[in-house]
């Protein structure tokens, strides 16, 4: 653990701050906005390329204009590549170059401190089952990393998908054993392999390997719970368990900030001390969530997830969301400057904590419990199960104290999850054998290092 207790988990402050980009220190005392922007509905091909470039030029110009006007102390821009831009690495790199140039101009003209995060698309799941360690998708992805590192990225990230082919099936059928297999066995294996490569590429160029996210796992569950397709308690337990696979990036050398959509970030921060990016109430341009305030409680970067370049009454949406984030950060930083960070953190936490099981597992206290459960185990499988059990305990205690209200069908699911966690074998290899008949055809063993 990098912290002794929940009170050490504060927004804006990480035990191991990160200096990067143009004079930025993330986690060094202030929260900065991380603005994430994307195209409106447009075909991405060479015939539209000049229009696409124009969109990114416009978005960056407007975001930075707003940032300078509002005197933000620092800013991170995130460029999430769309699949076509990863498939053709030169396209992604061209936009990275453009964005970096904009940041350099804003820095030299106005002294704006900044960094550029670039996130290629993990396209390795194109085949069924996905082939993760070789073939065209991996080669294109790898090239995309190389090109964007060379083009000027300060921080490299990815939303990796190893294990998702089993996790999706597990989620859909509410099969906790399959979910644990995906999160505790498959995903960590892929994370270790992938992040070894990413860290090597970044180290060679002096670029920061930022971190990953369990977006394809836990956020999928969160969004399906939001649509009433899955129980919220399942999404909450998946969130806790997903921290283990995201942690593997840091074991391989990632330094933060983890990705904005990694809501498991606080657990990562508690264990590694590295800074994290989070998103919540100001990410409504992309999706809704039950954790809008509490997600900010321990963030070091505060993000809008993704906003399209469309016109609103005020101006273009990326500029509007840059302002929204800037004001959020200004409030948090003002509270810090007045010695009231812990109070504001408490309000952010309490306003959401017991209104949703997913919020209940994100409080600073829950974060420390889940983190401690994880580090008490040695292997990813045991850590994943321990995180799941800790989440179930937190929810049961909330129910027993009357703070958490759950509908009967949610309580039934909590019992089911608890029972299934209890039926798990002692190690991942036994679970793999147990699930071979029902899930063996979904994944490629060689992609996870088995011969």
């Amino acid at each position, binding site marked *: 653990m990098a912290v002794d207790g929940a009170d050490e988990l504060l927004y804006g402050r990480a035990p191991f701050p990160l200096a990067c980009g143009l004079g930025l220190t993330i986690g060094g005392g202030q929260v900065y906005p991380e603005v994430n922007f994307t195209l409106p509905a447009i075909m991405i091909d060479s015939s539209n390329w000049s229009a696409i470039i124009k969109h990114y030029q416009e978005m960056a110009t407007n975001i930075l204009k707003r940032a300078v006007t509002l005197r933000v102390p620092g800013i991170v821009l995130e460029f999430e590549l769309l699949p076509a831009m990863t498939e053709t690495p030169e396209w992604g790199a061209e936009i990275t170059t453009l964005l970096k140039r904009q940041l350099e101009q804003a820095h030299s003209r106005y002294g704006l401190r900044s960094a550029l995060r670039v996130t290629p698309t993990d396209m390795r*799941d194109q085949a069924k089952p996905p082939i993760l360690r070789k073939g065209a998708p991996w080669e294109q992805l790898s090239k995309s990393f190389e090109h964007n590192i060379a083009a000027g990225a300060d921080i490299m990230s990815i939303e990796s998908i190893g294990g998702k082919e089993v996790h999706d099936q597990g989620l*859909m059928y509410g099969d906790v054993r399959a979910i644990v297999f995906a999160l505790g066995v498959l995903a960590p294996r892929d994370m270790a392999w992938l992040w070894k490569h990413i860290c090597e590429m970044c180290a060679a160029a002096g670029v920061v390997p930022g971190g990953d996210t369990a977006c394809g796992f836990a956020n999928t569950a969160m969004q399906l719970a939001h649509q009433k397709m899955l129980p919220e308690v399942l999404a909450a337990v998946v969130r806790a368990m997903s921290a283990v696979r995201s942690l593997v990036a840091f074991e391989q050398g990632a330094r933060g900030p983890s990705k904005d959509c990694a809501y498991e970030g606080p657990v990562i921060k508690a264990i590694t001390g590295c800074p994290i990016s989070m998103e919540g109430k100001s990410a409504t341009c992309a999706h809704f969530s039950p954790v809008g305030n509490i997600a900010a409680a321990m963030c070091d970067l505060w993000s809008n997830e993704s906003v399209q370049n469309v016109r609103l009454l005020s101006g273009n949406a990326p500029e509007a969301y840059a302002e929204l984030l800037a004001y959020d950060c200004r409030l948090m930083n003002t509270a810090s400057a007045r010695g009231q960070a812990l109070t504001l953190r408490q309000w952010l936490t309490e306003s959401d904590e017991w209104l949703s099981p997913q919020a209940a597992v994100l409080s600073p206290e829950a974060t420390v419990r889940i983190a401690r459960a994880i580090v008490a185990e040695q292997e990813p499988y045991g850590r994943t199960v321990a995180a799941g059990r800790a989440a179930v305990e937190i929810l049961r205690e909330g129910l027993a104290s009357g703070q958490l209200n759950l509908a009967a069908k949610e309580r039934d*699911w909590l019992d089911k999850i608890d029972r299934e966690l209890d039926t798990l074998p002692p190690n991942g290899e036994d679970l793999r054998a147990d699930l071979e008949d029902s899930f063996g055809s979904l994944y490629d063993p060689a992609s996870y290092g088995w011969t």
Partner: protein
Amino acid sequence: MAELQKLFDAIVNGDAKAARALTEQALADNVPPGEIISGYMIPAMDDVGAKFECEDYFVPELLLSGRAMKGALELLRPLLAASGTEPTGRVVIGTVKGDLHDIGKNLVTSLLEGGGFEVHDLGADVSPEKFIEAARSHKADIVALSALLTVTMPAMKTTVEAFCQAGLRDSVKIIIGGAPVTAQYAQAIGADGYSESASAAVALARSLMGNN
């Protein structure tokens, strides 16, 4: 018919083993396959769909019921084929080119199968050419397109246009769905229908087949 009511219950409860065993028993008792399907299996899945729509059921319950029905239906398929019984309709479904999301599509697939449709699922990232080839080879009545990203929605328009160019547009009904998709968009690109939910997709498919 008490045993067949138990088949209805087994499907609603997602009990695949029981559903299969009760179907075997029904066949042994010479209950016509058509009666088993239209009298008990499809109504069971309709009940499941209704429970899902009013949020009594989550997706796992829906899919487990779908799996129970599918397993039992496998016993009946050879008998149906032998008697020349046609499915409610033939559907080719997929997520469009450039989009890897498939959860919504999978839900629609499960409910369509539960509704008596023969469904050919092409997966995700499906090119217009692949949709056309599948529609031809499976003699599809309906082509169902899914997209979850605004940047992949244009591929729905491209797919519709490809069907026109291939001379197949008049022989299939094209329906679309997915989080960013709207009825207005469906109209704008010349699709035959749009559904905002998995259950609505089944109702839409039935109405397009003339079976309301």
